[in-house]
């Protein structure tokens, strides 16, 4: 895709973008195309932060920002568009200030909301290039499906732990996200960054690459990552590019635009086992001094952020190992005839741990997963 060049660049713009203008592949025409172009950044977190700054600095003419969140201290390990001075302020405002400082000619449109079924088409239809900087599967599928329906390129980035992924999904010329990953993983296989962790610089690398792809698309230069996916391994420092295939039976991009019906993606557990308990209900049972055992399966480092009073620390890998060695016998401190509450950071590892407990002979009726884990426990530090 190429946008039509804007009529002219001001003297200030000619000075600011001088390093672009001397690039023969880019030149003044590329810069004018950027100025005429527009991009929608969905999510201003780890990916969206660097992407927003570089797109602003590069001279994209109009940028939409979609994010409903405010800046929190735990964001600052990776979300570099924000800082201590703006804690508690909306991320779209924080990012806007930084972006305008880099490029005062930029037009920024703030959308303080979450992308949802009601607003997706209206928002995405207004921009040339869409940048997926979201942090959850349901929104990623909504971004994809809407982009396919509207014929928009979706610059995809994803990170977790030390892994990063990048692609450009443009169903007019290649596969869409659903061609590659038709459905999200069940909840127990899809930890988020708060649960599994992420090295702060990982979204920095991938967010910058997303900005690169968006700039290429708008300026009409280079070869976009359509039909390819970059796999970045931060621990090995390797970049591998994979050729990925369009699925002729894709439930979204094989259809005509008018036949694509946007739907909500619901995350489900593969096979939930045991019961669940909310933080308030658990507090009530503790206040009533009911006999119960609380097992915290997070890692010892995570315990430093706070523990439920009286809980037993039993990291998930050690719990699994102990259960495997117990041959069906109850573990020390975990009798089979009492209610056991299992907790982790967000409820995923604890859910998996409950399966191991059941497989080892514990009664599923006596096992309860703390819903949303420690992130829902009052006073606990959340990420």
């Amino acid at each position: 895709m190429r946008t039509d060049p804007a009529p002219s660049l001001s003297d200030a713009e000619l000075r600011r973008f001088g390093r672009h203008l001397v690039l023969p592949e880019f030149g003044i025409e590329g810069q004018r195309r950027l100025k005429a172009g527009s991009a929608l950044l969905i999510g201003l977190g780890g990916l969206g932060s660097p992407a927003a700054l570089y797109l602003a600095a590069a001279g994209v003419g109009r940028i939409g920002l979609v994010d409903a969140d405010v800046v929190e201290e735990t964001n600052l390990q990776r979300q570099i568009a924000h800082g201590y001075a703006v804690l508690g302020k909306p991320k779209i405002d924080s990012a806007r200030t930084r972006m305008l400082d880099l490029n005062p000619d930029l037009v920024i449109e703030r959308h303080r909301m979450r992308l949802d079924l009601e607003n997706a088409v209206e928002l995405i239809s207004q921009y040339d290039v869409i940048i997926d900087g979201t942090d959850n599967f349901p929104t990623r599928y909504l971004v994809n499906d809407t982009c396919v329906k509207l014929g928009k390129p979706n610059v995809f980035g994803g990170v977790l732990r030390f892994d990063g992924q990048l692609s450009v999904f443009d169903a007019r010329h290649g596969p869409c996200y659903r061609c590659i990953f038709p459905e999200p993983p069940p909840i127990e296989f899809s930890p988020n960054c708060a649960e599994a962790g992420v090295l702060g610089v990982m979204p920095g690398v991938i967010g910058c690459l997303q900005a690169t792809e968006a700039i290429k698309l708008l300026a009409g230069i280079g070869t976009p990552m359509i039909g390819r996916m970059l796999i970045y391994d931060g621990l090995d420092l390797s970049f591998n590019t994979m050729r990925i295939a369009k699925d002729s039976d894709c439930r979204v991009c094989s259809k005509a635009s008018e036949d694509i019906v946007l739907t909500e993606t619901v995350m489900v557990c593969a096979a939930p086992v045991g019961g669940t308990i909310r933080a308030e209900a658990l507090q009530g049972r503790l206040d009533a001094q009911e006999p119960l055992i609380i097992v915290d399966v997070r890692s010892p480092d995570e315990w430093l952020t706070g523990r439920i009073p009286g809980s037993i620390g039993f990291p998930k890998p050690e719990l699994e190992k102990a259960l495997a060695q117990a041959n069906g016998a109850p573990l020390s401190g975990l009798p089979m005839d009492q209610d056991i509450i299992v907790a982790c950071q967000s409820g995923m590892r604890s859910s998996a741990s409950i399966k191991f407990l059941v497989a080892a002979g514990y009664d599923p009726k006596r096992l309860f997963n703390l819903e949303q884990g420690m992130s829902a426990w009052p006073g606990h530090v959340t990420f």
Partner: protein
Amino acid sequence: MAVILVPSSLRRYSDQQSRLSLSAGTIAEALARFAERSKDLQNHLFAGKTLRNFVVVCKNGKDIRLLNGMETPIGDTDEVQIIASVAGG
């Protein structure tokens, strides 16, 4: 022996190794051999005998769906990359 490239999210099953060498004649054999390391891993990669649809496998940088799927042959110099979908941002 062929090499399996393991994403960091699955390295708890590979003793934290990013590359595992193993003998296998096809992608199916390689993944089966890898999955033998843990029931949890088996469950992560497969629903019964079917590769889960949030896991992509590539041989030498090419999605096996562009080749011969799970029956794609592999040899000693081939690299098999496992890609798990990640949503973090």
